[in-house]
């Protein structure tokens, strides 16, 4: 960061200390809440609140693909649908899928696909439906986070969860997880999706203008954010199997337990 920009920002703002619009630290995520198994009729589902984003994701499959000509004989197909509800933004938007929806659907598909073993499901499809109930910037990242939890909740074999988070430049500073205001007023935005355990980036987009150093810093910061998201995803998946009333502690008598391998129909 150069000195001149710092002076400018302090001049513009009357307070001495620079702060983000919602008072967060530059490397702080918005409040994150994930829940799994929220749609009983879906094979897997998840609900995420990332700041004011509210997204619900349902996963169906692997199932027979229709129309059949779109299926692949040697591998399964992942089909994601990103859709913003008409009331998710102000002013109301048309419920018809827009160019932007189509593009983000594709981007989400490409970000999640490396984590799946699609070759195990030839001629089948895994459908992921992400519905944006309320949008507040960074919906594609939040959708990926929820979709990864929903896929794991559906019991679909995965190499790793997919965590996603954006970083960007706002008022000359590199900040993590931009909200809608920062996204629009800021100089730049870099959404990243990341496989935390494999240490691979599966989505990298960039919008706006930044120097090479700033971009590198952004990506690093976004990956740090992804790691924080990963912990929340893990917690969400485990929370579903919390303690059941009257159940014994699992460590107590593992020997008496009927295990799956031994269970056989008479």
């Amino acid at each position: 960061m150069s000195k001149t920009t710092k002076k400018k920002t302090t001049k513009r703002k009357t307070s001495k200390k620079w702060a983000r619009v919602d008072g967060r630290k530059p490397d702080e995520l918005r409040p994150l809440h994930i829940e799994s198994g929220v749609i009983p009729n879906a094979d897997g589902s998840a609900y995420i609140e990332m700041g004011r984003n509210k997204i619900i994701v349902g996963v169906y499959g692997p199932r027979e693909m229709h129309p059949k000509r779109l299926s692949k004989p040697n591998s399964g197909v992942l089909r994601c649908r990103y859709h913003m509800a008409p009331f998710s933004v102000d002013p109301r938007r048309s419920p018809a899928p827009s160019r932007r929806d189509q593009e983000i659907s594709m981007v989400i598909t490409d970000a999640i696909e490396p984590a799946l073993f699609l070759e195990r499901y030839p001629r089948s499809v895994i459908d992921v439906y992400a519905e944006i109930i309320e949008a507040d910037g960074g919906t594609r990242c939040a959708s990926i986070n929820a979709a990864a939890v929903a896929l794991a909740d559906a019991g679909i074999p995965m190499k790793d969860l997919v965590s996603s988070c954006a970083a960007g430049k706002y008022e000359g500073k590199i900040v993590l997880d931009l909200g809608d205001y920062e996204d629009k007023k800021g100089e730049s935005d870099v959404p990243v999706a990341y496989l935390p355990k494999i240490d691979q980036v599966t989505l990298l987009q960039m919008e706006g203008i930044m120097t090479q150093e700033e971009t590198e810093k952004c990506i690093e910061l976004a990956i740090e954010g992804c790691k924080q998201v990963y912990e929340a995803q893990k917690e969400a998946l485990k929370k579903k199997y919390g303690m059941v009333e009257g159940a014994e502690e699992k460590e107590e008598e593992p020997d008496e337990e009927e295990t799956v391998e031994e269970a056989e129909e008479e």
Partner: protein
Amino acid sequence: MTKEEKLSTKFETRDIVVPGDLLYEGRIRTGENTFRREGNVYSNKVGLVSYSQDRVSVIALEGTYTPLVGDLVVGMVIDIALGQWVVDINASTDAILTITDAINKSFRTNFDMTKVLDVGDVVVAKIVDLDRRRTPILSIVGRELGKVHEGFILKITPSKIPRLIGKKGSMINMILRETRCQITIGQNGRILINGRNREDEELVVKVVHKIETEAHTSGLTNRIQEYLREIKEDRK
């Protein structure tokens, strides 16, 4: 367990793991729901990890049905093609039932297939053949197989079927004894229930639901037995 093995295991047996969790570092056989990457073993599903002498596996808590030869399944006829019925068995691909696997005698080319099975019929069938690239092949020739005439179907997560059956059938035998219903468990997560009266059937539905939500906990059979007795006493 030797000292060396203990160092390599990353979890305790029956800990909950999520996809991508490192389960074991080093040489060991990979059991169910695990995969090997760069010489280490990772989980690929949400489940309970289980370490044994020579292998590490994950007991899946959620999962879709993967057809295996010999499985008993409850399916629904969804289409009739040339010489075969297409049966939905809740798997990633639909299953095929040919005439020769449906009737145990010779037939003519003008054979009316709808007389044996029609679209919408429910069948209890066995998977007799399978290819990873191809659809499962079913057979309804055999004892307790064939078209279903009465009862209703209950759906549960296929990965929880083993818990419903229990160790050597302990759970299902107990439920059969207590509820006096006819129960056919399809490995594909569809359970066919046929009771003498509505009350008995409702009892089964309640119990199966409880098993499904508490499948990952210990001492389940005893708890279910108590639960059944409680409901029965309430009724009296």
